[in-house]
């Protein structure tokens, strides 16, 4: 039985700076995770800003090679250098939705051209009505239509519209794995729920697995099967989403949950971060540690004293 995705002890280091002193950034530090083919799931990654979430996603997408470790998708090694056919086959199964739609689109290219070339490339379609139908179908799933976006350039759409187009584009090849890097951070509450519900539908009705990267604990709680929490390149807690979010154990996970802004006290300006939890979480940075399994199935990083 081969896993859908197998990330094995993967690390990524970058070197920052030039002539005046270099600095190594451990963007990802010994990350392992497995998604099974038989059980499509929404797997959520939450973590510090700069903790390596996007870097990990880029490695899974074969856009960046790990410095150490390996990544297997359906038993095949994922790497940056793939032949054209191999890359096409891979990309028809694994599709990205990136963090910032303003950066993801070429400002000089009409939006529907993007969708059109995706449809041509992956569906092998050449008939215009078939392509248009596939584009419209994908756009309808995200609450847009081909008529609305035809001929428009990225800057002519609002942030939320652009992000929905990015998701629609990713759905065209009917992928087995969708990697969505903060897909809802720029849309309103109502659309956010419809996109999040869409991810659910993809899992339940079409068997698509989703890696959902977000800063939003509430939607993570609402849709995820499993969750993984990252701090400074390391996985510090991983397990069933509801258990982890209800009773977070690692100091950083606890800090994160305590920092959720509440609307219960609207107008009171509650912006203080719990100093004790903050200190406990900072103390973990740079300290050696290992993931230890808990009876409830989660794993938590325990640090050496």
């Amino acid at each position: 039985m081969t896993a859908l995705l197998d990330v094995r002890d993967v690390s990524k280091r970058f070197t920052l700076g030039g002539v005046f002193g270099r600095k190594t950034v451990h963007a990802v530090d010994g990350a392992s995770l497995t998604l099974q083919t038989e059980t499509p799931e929404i797997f959520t990654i939450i973590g510090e800003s700069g903790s390596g979430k996007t870097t990990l996603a880029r490695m899974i997408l074969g856009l960046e090679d790990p410095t150490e470790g390996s990544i297997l998708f359906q038993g095949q090694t994922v790497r940056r250098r793939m032949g054209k056919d191999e890359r096409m086959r891979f990309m028809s199964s694994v599709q990205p939705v990136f963090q910032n739609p303003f950066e993801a689109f070429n400002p000089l290219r009409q939006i529907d051209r993007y969708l059109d070339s995706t449809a041509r490339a992956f569906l092998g379609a050449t008939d215009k009505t078939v392509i248009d139908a596939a584009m419209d179908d994908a756009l309808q799933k995200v609450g847009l239509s081909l008529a609305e976006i035809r001929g428009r350039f990225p800057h002519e759409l609002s942030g939320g519209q652009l992000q929905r187009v990015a998701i629609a584009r990713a759905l065209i090849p009917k992928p087995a794995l969708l990697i969505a890097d903060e897909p809802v951070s720029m849309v309103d509450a109502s659309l956010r729920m419809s996109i999040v519900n869409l991810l659910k539908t993809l899992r339940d009705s079409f068997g698509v697995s989703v890696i959902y990267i977000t800063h939003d604990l509430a939607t993570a709680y609402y849709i995820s099967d499993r969750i993984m929490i990252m701090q400074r390149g390391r996985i510090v807690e991983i397990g069933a989403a509801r258990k982890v979010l209800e009773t977070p154990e690692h100091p950083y996970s606890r800090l994160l949950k305590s920092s959720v802004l509440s609307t219960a006290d609207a107008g009171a300006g509650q912006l203080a971060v719990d100093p004790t939890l903050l200190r406990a979480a900072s103390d973990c940075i740079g300290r050696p540690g290992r993931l230890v399994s808990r009876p409830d199935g989660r794993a938590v990083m325990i640090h050496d004293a």
Partner: protein
Amino acid sequence: MTDEILRVDGLKAYYQMHYFGVQREVRAVDDVTMSIGRNEVYGIAGESSSGKTSFIKVLAAAVRPPLRVVSGSVNYDFRSGPINVAAATAAEVERVRWKSLSYIMQGSMSVLNPVRRIGQTFHDFAFRPLGLPREAFDRRVLDHLARLKLPADILRAYPHELSGGMRQRVTIGLATICHPEFIIADEPTTALDLVVQKEVLHLIRDIQAEMGASVVFVTHDMSVHANVTDRIGIFYAGRLVEEGPTRKMFFAPRHPYTAHLVASLPRIGDTAQRPSLDGRPPNLAAPPDGCRFHPRCPLAVDKCRIDVPPLVEVAPGQRSACWRWQDVQPLDRSVALAHGAVT
């Protein structure tokens, strides 16, 4: 309001385009009148594509074709003198930019030059306006970065070498380092983790309090509005449909769209299906007659389909554009919240 720093009157700003001889017009900002007080944090929320970014582009004097101010005025009363940015020349705008008026754009990358290191960009932006000697300037930049929880070595990095949240903090740093009187921020904290987000919001509030600055803040995150803003304005389909003090907007909204908005997000520990609004967002090239929300409104009656509701005062400091504002009920959950029954 006693002391206004900004007054917007009858503002209309449309995107006007010609496609193969056909004129197309998107009425992104359609008759907005409002004002903002000195030392006030004003939050803007609303649907995706309701015109929030377009509106604050006008406030920020960052209007570019095809966007055009069709009518109305945007008057600031800066210490350096008054200015109507809807009619000002480029040179007049340049004089107030960054020093008096700063703008953090949605999608942070656009102000960061991809081939310049972050340190150089800080120099480009702030060295002249601050007028400090080199050493003092460097110290000021480092202090400012530290307050944004950014390490000093990012000054040597290129934009693509930073994570999304780091870039976002860099742009906040650029917009605040000169301590402007008026800060306009479009979704400035969407890419930040909750801990850093809280710290950055705190910083924005600190700067605002220290300098007596005013802030206009666009975000979809209602919990950010709840904790940062003094007042909130809600946009729907190019119009300001409700406005009022933050507490009132959460606990006694008087527009059905606001009521929906404050009640629509799930919370940890809560797995109940959350409603998303039925129907689609209106097309701003051909908006519905009457109240633009009527096709999706649970309270709509015939009058709503025909007559445009004016934005009128419904309680002290609170204005709503709804014919049936008296019938708007806060959704159950917000009532419960107000009574501390749930968290």
